[in-house]
């Protein structure tokens, strides 16, 4: 399994993207942005379709561009209209899925081509995707590490963060861009439909096992890493799509974490002598 170049690339991508999604996920879930991530990933379908339409063999570039466009549209509509954010996102999500599917049908693509984008495909991870994943991993890892205090303060309360001297607007903007790029790159591994699960499940799993944010971040990183690597390896071994396998691995960890938590509560700590 480890000697095949495509598998090496897939495992490398999983090594970078698992922890990256899990780290961002801690803040995405706390800031109620899971649906935002879902909207961006579904928006990518139109990007994929446009790429095929333009005759590109690998639609990574239009996929990323279209995700950024959708993110921009959400932010722009939220500031310019009275529409509730959820409505804006549901609108954009269904719009871009509809347009994407219509274009793909008109192009008479084989269902298999669409499937690979909907549910992830280890064969789709090329050198470009690995480099993108590595670059994002380094950039976001360092960024979050340096701005951890500011990011946490914004998550607690934005006005308070402002009074503490945090550049709230700038940091929010950066966070949206970074999240969008991460989602767009991770789509190749997990697929449009499942990408948000790698952002949501690891922090949720870590949460039931930790008592403070430090533990939640570290555990979430570990769970994201383990889930992505194990899922990718199992997907090869069982010859099933990679996205669903990663999700199933993460969910197994989640259920185990609930069990551990229940056990911890049922068995009181021994009293100190």
């Amino acid at each position: 399994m480890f000697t095949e170049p495509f598998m090496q690339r897939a495992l490398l991508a999983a090594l970078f993207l698992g922890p990256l999604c899990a780290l961002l996920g801690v803040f995405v879930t706390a800031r109620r942005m899971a649906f935002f991530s879902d909207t961006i990933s579904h928006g990518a379908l139109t990007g994929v379709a446009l790429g095929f339409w333009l005759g590109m063999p690998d639609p990574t570039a239009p996929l990323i561009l279209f995700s950024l466009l959708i993110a921009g549209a959400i932010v722009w509509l939220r500031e310019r209209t009275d529409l509730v954010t959820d409505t804006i996102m549901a609108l954009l999500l269904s719009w871009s899925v509809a347009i994407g599917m219509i274009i793909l049908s008109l192009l008479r693509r084989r269902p298999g081509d669409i499937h690979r984008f909907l549910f992830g495909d280890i064969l789709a991870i090329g050198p470009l995707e690995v480099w993108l994943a590595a670059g994002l991993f380094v950039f976001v890892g360092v960024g979050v590490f340096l701005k951890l205090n500011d990011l946490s303060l914004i998550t607690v309360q934005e006005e308070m963060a402002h009074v503490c001297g945090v550049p709230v607007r700038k940091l929010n903007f950066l966070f949206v861009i970074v999240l969008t790029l991460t989602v767009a790159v991770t789509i190749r591994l997990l697929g449009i439909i499942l990408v948000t699960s790698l952002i949501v499940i690891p922090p949720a799993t870590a949460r039931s096992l930790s008592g403070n944010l430090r533990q939640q971040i570290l555990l979430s990183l570990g769970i994201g890493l383990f889930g992505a690597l194990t899922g990718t390896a199992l997907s090869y071994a069982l010859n099933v799509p990679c996205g669903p396998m990663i999700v199933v691995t993460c969910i197994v960890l989640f259920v185990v974490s609930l069990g551990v938590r229940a056990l911890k509560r049922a068995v009181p700590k021994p009293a100190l002598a």
Partner: protein
Amino acid sequence: MHLCPEHQGPLVVETRNLRVTLGGRSILDGVNFRVPKGQLVALIGPNGSGKTTLLRCLLGLQKPDSGEVRLFGESDVREALPRIGYVPQRLDLERSFILSVREFLALRMENTRHWFWQAHKTNDQLIRSSVAEIGVEELLDRPLAHLSGGQLQRVLIAFSLLRNPELLLLDEPTAGVDTPGEQTFYDLIADVQQRRKLTVVLVSHDLSMVFRQASWVYALNGVICCEGHPEHVMNAESLKQAYGIHVSPYHHHHHH
């Protein structure tokens, strides 16, 4: 005993003829608001009277259409931010975000950097003394998102005091607190204010609660419609008629 604000030394907060229009609706229509150094001033008014907007102007979060805001004599509000402690009405916290009280307080310390808030000796001592002052030592290891309304407000006070501010701004700090808890909370604020010689602006919808601690009261309803000592404002007919603020004589016996 109390003098009107003009005669009490330097002004910490001053707005001149402040006007704000939001979505075509006039929210503040020429507000003059002054807080002298070392005073505990209450800003009262019903919901929608512009209290929060005025506070946002003071913090530089809302640009006024016209008029002026000065903090510590500075017209650039951002310059004054390091001297301000701010306690918001509520947090946007999701229960899944399990930032502990200790971690939260460490976010305010200048030298808390990276290493995921590993205990730092000086920090930890400062944090300990700040929670001791407010009486929330036992909450240090609890997640912030799991505290009750009253506990959370106390932790927020401890947070806002960490960098030794000169001005404390509190926006409806007792919104999520029950009535008996509310009174002890205001007593705590008055106590801290006296001890640290702070200037405090307390925003509240309810005059009867801040009656005991405030040295001066501004009643806001788009404009400052009434100002003075709490006794004066409480008995002002114009105030009651104008917008029926809850001005029960609940605390009169404390003062005679």
